[in-house]
Each structure stands twice: as C-alpha cells, then as structure tokens.
C-alpha cells in the first residue's frame, strides 16, 4: 500500500501539479480543472480506453495515450490540448458521427447528450467523412426502457455498469468491427431478458439517446448519475 499512496509530481500543460501515485492523468487533470473530453469514461465504471477522445501527448513518447487509463509517474510531462491532439479528437468525433445516425433534432436526448456537448465544446462544425448509416433497429420490448442502436456510440458504459455495478451481466457486445453492437443476454429482445433486473442503470449511464425511458419525447430524456459515485464509495467502504 505504501507505494500506492506515494505522491508524484508532474506537469500538465506546463503547470506543475501533485498527484496520488495511483492516479490517472484524467483524474489529476479533472482535479485541476483541465478539460479533457471523454465519452466512454464515466467515474465509477471500469475504464475502457476505447473512445480515444481523452488521448494526450506525453513528453518523450510518440504514442498518444488515453488519459483515462494512463497512470501518472514522477516527472511526467503531459500535453492535453496541443494542436495535434485537438485535430485528432475532432476527427475521431467526426468518425463517431459518421458511423450511425446522430441527427439531434429528432433525438430524445437532444440538449442533454454528451456526444452533442462534446461536439459543441470541440467546435466540430462539419463531418468530412461519408455517413455510413447502417441498418440498425430499435428494441422497445422492455416494459420501461428502449434501445435505439442508431444512437449508440459503442462506449460500452451499459455493459460495464451492468457487470460491474448491478452484477447482472445482461448487456454484452456481439460481432466485430463496424458490425459490433450491444446486445441483451444472448442477442434476444430486451423484453425477453431473463437476467435484466430492470434497474435502469444502463439507461442512466448512456451518454446519448441510445438507451432511454419509454414515453420520453424529443429532448425530454435527462440522465441521472448521482448514484454512481455513491455506489463506488459504498463499495470501497465495504472493502
């Protein structure tokens, strides 16, 4: 335990900061009000490193690292906002927008969407890649919730909250590459799921309008996530 609690000093964008030895770059950045965009990351869930929005430059390495899973080390020099990074982040975001249908004006989460927020914050004003718009379904077989795969950005927050917090393991991923999609149980209708506890955590952690409560019209779906930090604190205390 001793080495874990050791304090490390590093610089983020030229500013010298202190950090817990086991902290990630993202944690330290957030503690010091440095904005790093994230989509798949959500505090309280096992980090994933898949959306690549939080990539940063580390002095001495050519490789860009996702700040959500990269631990700090003594003397580390991090750049979170260089032109190179901004350029890549915008392009990755454009790739997400080009993958499925993200037309905000007809989305339940319009105005309350992390994808939309990120696009605005990063100043993404157009998508230069062709829209792929694959054929995707809406599964509204569950009593209270529905999933619109067209809005899904494959962040896997639903999968991780279901396995890591609820412990139900209802959500998973099927297929590979561009054909990957989130599924319930063995790729059956959500309404037929035998493992789903209907806790709704997946709906609340979803960053977009992919998972929503039934009965919500355009722009009406707001997500609540206060329970997550509470649950993780409870878990830590128990341990």
């Amino acid at each position, binding site marked *: 335990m001793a080495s874990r609690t050791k304090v490390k000093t590093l610089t983020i964008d030229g500013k010298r900061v202190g950090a817990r030895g086991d902290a990630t770059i993202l944690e330290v950045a957030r503690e010091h009000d440095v904005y790093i965009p994230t989509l798949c990351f959500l505090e309280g869930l096992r980090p*994933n*490193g*898949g*959306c*690549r929005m939080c*990539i940063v430059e580390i002095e001495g390495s050519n490789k*860009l*690292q*996702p700040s959500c*899973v*990269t*631990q700090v080390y003594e003397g580390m020099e991090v750049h979170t906002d260089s032109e190179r990074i901004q350029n*890549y982040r915008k*392009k*990755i975001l454009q*790739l*997400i927008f*080009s*993958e499925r249908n993200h037309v905000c004006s007809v989305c339940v989460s319009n105005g309350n969407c992390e994808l939309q927020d990120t696009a605005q914050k990063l100043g993404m004003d157009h998508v*230069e*890649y*062709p829209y*792929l718009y694959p054929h995707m379904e809406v599964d509204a077989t569950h009593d209270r919730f529905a999933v619109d795969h067209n809005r899904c*950005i*494959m962040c*896997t927050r639903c999968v991780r909250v279901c396995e890591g917090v609820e412990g139900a393991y209802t959500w998973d*991923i099927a*297929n*590979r*590459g*561009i*054909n*990957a999609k989130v599924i319930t149980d063995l790729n059956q209708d959500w309404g037929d799921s035998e493992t789903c506890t209907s806790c709704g955590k997946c709906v609340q952690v979803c960053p977009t309008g992919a998972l929503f409560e039934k009965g919500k019209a355009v722009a009406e779906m707001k997500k609540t996530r206060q329970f997550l930090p509470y649950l993780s604190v409870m878990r830590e205390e128990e341990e």
Partner: protein
Amino acid sequence: MTREELQEIAENELEAREELDHLIFVCNAASCQSSQGLQLIESLKSGIEEKELGDTVEVKGAGCMGLCAAGPLVLIEPDGILYTQVKPEDAGEILNHLESEAVERLKTDLEMPFFGKQVKIVLENSGKIDPEKIEDYIAMEGYTALNRVITEMSPGEVIDVISDSGLRGRGGAGYPTGLKWSTVGIAEDVQKYVVCNADEGDPGAFMDRSVLESDPHRVLEGMAIAGYAVGADKGYIYVRAEYPLAIERLREAIKRARRLNLLGNNIFGSQFSFNLEIRLGAGAFVCGEETALLASIEGRQGRPRPRPPYPAEYGLWGHPTLINNVETFANVAPIIRNGAEWFASIGTENSKGTKVFAMAGSINNTGLIEVPMGITLRDIIYDLGGGLPEDLKFKAVQTGGPSGGCVPEEHLDMPVDYESLKEVGTMMGSGGMIVVDASSDMVSDVAKYFVEFCKSESCGKCVPCRVGTAQMYDLLDKISKDEATQRDLDLLVDLCDVVRNTSLCGLGQAAPQPVLSTLEYFKEDYDAHLQKATDKLTHAVQREE
C-alpha cells in the same frame, strides 16, 4: 528422468535407425497431407510389407520439408535423395530403386539454391523426424538444453545467454527477447506465466503452423526453458482453432513429454515444475495482439486493452506474463545447446540468427524457407523462390502481412533485417512474403485487400479502428471502381494518419501501412484510377451535351 535416461532414449533410437538400410521420410504436414500425402505413406507401408522389407526399411511421417509447391515430398535416408510431387502409385517404383539408382523423374536437385542458401535452426529437424514421436526429437538432442539449464544453470545465466545471443522476437516487432525475459524475471510475484502466441493469422503466413506440425517438442522445450528462466511454473499455448493438425500434434507432444516427466512437476528430479495447457483461439486476428490474447485465455472476449501496463508486469489474471511467438521459442533450445556466440555469429549486426519465411503469390517455389538475416530480398525471390512463373514480371513483394507494406524492385537488393525493412515502410512481421506481379493492381489487389482484412478483423473497441478502417475500405473501394476524386484520395491519406496514430492496439495502428506503402511506391496505380474516373465523368458530360 535423468540425463542418462535421456541419453539412453536417444541412443536406442539412433541404434534402431542404424539397423535399417533405409529410412523414408514422407512429409506429413498439412499442405502435403492435402495432396495425398497420407495415402502415399500408406502405399509405401503396404509396399514394404509386400516386398518383405520390414526389417530393413522404415517409413516415417515427417514434418514440412519446405518446398510445398512440389508436394508431397519424400526424403530417402541415408542417401539424402529428395523426391517431389510423389503420388501414391509411385511407391512401388521408389521401393524398387532403394538399392539402385534413384528414380530420376521424381528426384530433385538438392544442390539447387532453394536448399543451398538456407540455414536451418528453427527447422533443423523439420522433415527429418516424426513429430508424433518424442524419441525422434530426443535423438536429435531434444530436451538436452532443458536438462542443462535445470541442472547446471541459474535462471539469471539462462537469461544472459538469451540476451547475448541477440535473439529478437519473431512475432513481428523484433523486441529483444532477453530483455523481455529479464523484465518478467525480476517482476516480483509468486505466480508467473509463460504464454506462446501461436495465433498466426496473417494472410499468406504459415510458419508457426509448420513449426508446430513438424517439431512441436522444440516449442515445448523452449517454453519450459523460458519458464525456468523467468520463474514461471505454468504455461499456455494459444493456438488458433483453424490449425487442427498442429493442435493434435501439440496435444500428443504435451502428453508424451509429461509421461517422460519432461513437463510436469519436479522436472529432471529438480525443484522446477512446468505445466502446459493448450488454449484454442476462435479465429480472431486481433487475438494475436498480446493483451487481447490474454483476455481470451482468461475466458473473456478477445479485445485488447491499452498498454502500459505491459503483460510482463500485469498479464494473465494480473500476474507477470512472458509472451513470445512460436518461432522465438523454437530458437531457444539450439541457443542453449550451441551457445550465444554461435547464434550471434549468424545474421547481421542488429538482427541475429535466421528467419523463417512463407513464400506465396506469384513465385515458382511457394513454400517455407529459413534464411540467415541479412540475405537480400532478390536472393530470396529469385534464388530460393526460383523467380516468378513464366511471362510474369515482378512488381512488388508484400511483407509483414496486414501490418506490413510492399517493397518495389528498386529495394530488392536491400538486406532483410528488422531495421532495413522498416526503413522502406514495411516490417518483418511474422514472416509472410507475398510476391506480386505486374498484372496486379496495387489498389484493389493489395491495399483494398489488406484493409478489408483489418476492417473485418477489427474488434470494434476503439473508434479509429472500428470506424476508420471501414471508411478507409469504402474510399479504397470507390477508388478501385474508378469513381473517386482527388478529394477522396486526400481523405484516405488523412484517415491513414488518424487511424495509425490514435488506434488502441497494433491492429489499428498498422492497418494503414499497406495503403501508405502502395501510395509511396505505386502512386501511378491510384492516379490511373482517378484518371479513369475523370474520363468517365467527361464522357458522361459530353453525352449529356
């Protein structure tokens, strides 16, 4: 098992061989099996029975002899005669000629460069032993290296020998093997693991499959030595399920080695124990990436995670894990037997030893070769490979699989080593070599082909690889169909940059390589498609008018 007992097995086997007048090895690896190799073995066996030669002649199914294009191959010892393209009906003639002149129409010249320019370390036993008999391997000094490290050397000394030999990882990137071993060696944990990556999936590559099918014990011995050196008592071989013969022979080999206590607990009566298990991969290319491979062994979906932490520090179930490729492990026992200096004397300054290549595509001698590092590509293609089939003109050689690139004619005289290949925009990779002739279009036959492979093999976890490769494929498809503009090409180049620099694992990071390398050397192929698109448009406009 003691050293004396090991020696006794070897002596018995060699004596038995000496009592025979002739030993006939028939290639029994996958490609020769597919061209009636098994039937050939049967007809030779029944021929021997008929002619009552049982006391003086023996037929053995052996491993790959390299010249796969001319299979099935038959080697007659001690005469050293190699027959090619042998059919089951040739068995009688071969047996009739054992005591006289060889069968001329089947005989191959062993002096030809295909054989003469090879240096065999990894494949030294391939084709000369029955992979299903552990005694055969022991007769070739098998397991003596393991005996030596356990009884005479400290783990540190073993790592020093591997470091001094200059061996680099044969999986592709060429990381110094000794350094990797020492990192796992110094990691503090009661449990460590050794993993063999046999998830060979590059299009055109079959080196690892061949080693496993031809000489599985060599890999087991290498892994056990590694286990001793880094302090691991448990190992896994991750083999893709598409290699049923390799899996069958590995299973058999592990069983036999365990029975002789060459694997298992207290090997050679020492404190060292090493147990091995096979894990089958379901055929996902991404599982060759080490962190995805580990996830798969753990029973989870084979998707990579960001590194660091590297498996050497945080591997299987969080324990320090050494992962090496099949060919890397196959080099270990000979290095221990012959010494680091011997190995370091082969190859070039920074790339020591030999490399096994699988030659495919527009080339006469498709098959498997093992050559010293530093040999030129021209030597490989024209001398060993026998050049391109008639009327075909060389255009490029694709190396390194989906992560690699093309080498055009102007670079053919460059030495084959890790650094030189990197300099011209490709890589060693696991050792696939695909020769492309002038009739091929680099856009659709090479770039689009490999990007399609990466797109379908992408696990989908990270955005640049999942969406980027799909977009790249669509653009390449558009270009190849003469429907693209300069803007599409610019977009493709830009995408290559994004995918390469921001993808999570090696699959995505390397996926643009075939595009970038074909663009560098064969831009004219792209331009021709763009020109055709413009022409099409002009014609359409003219028709409208």
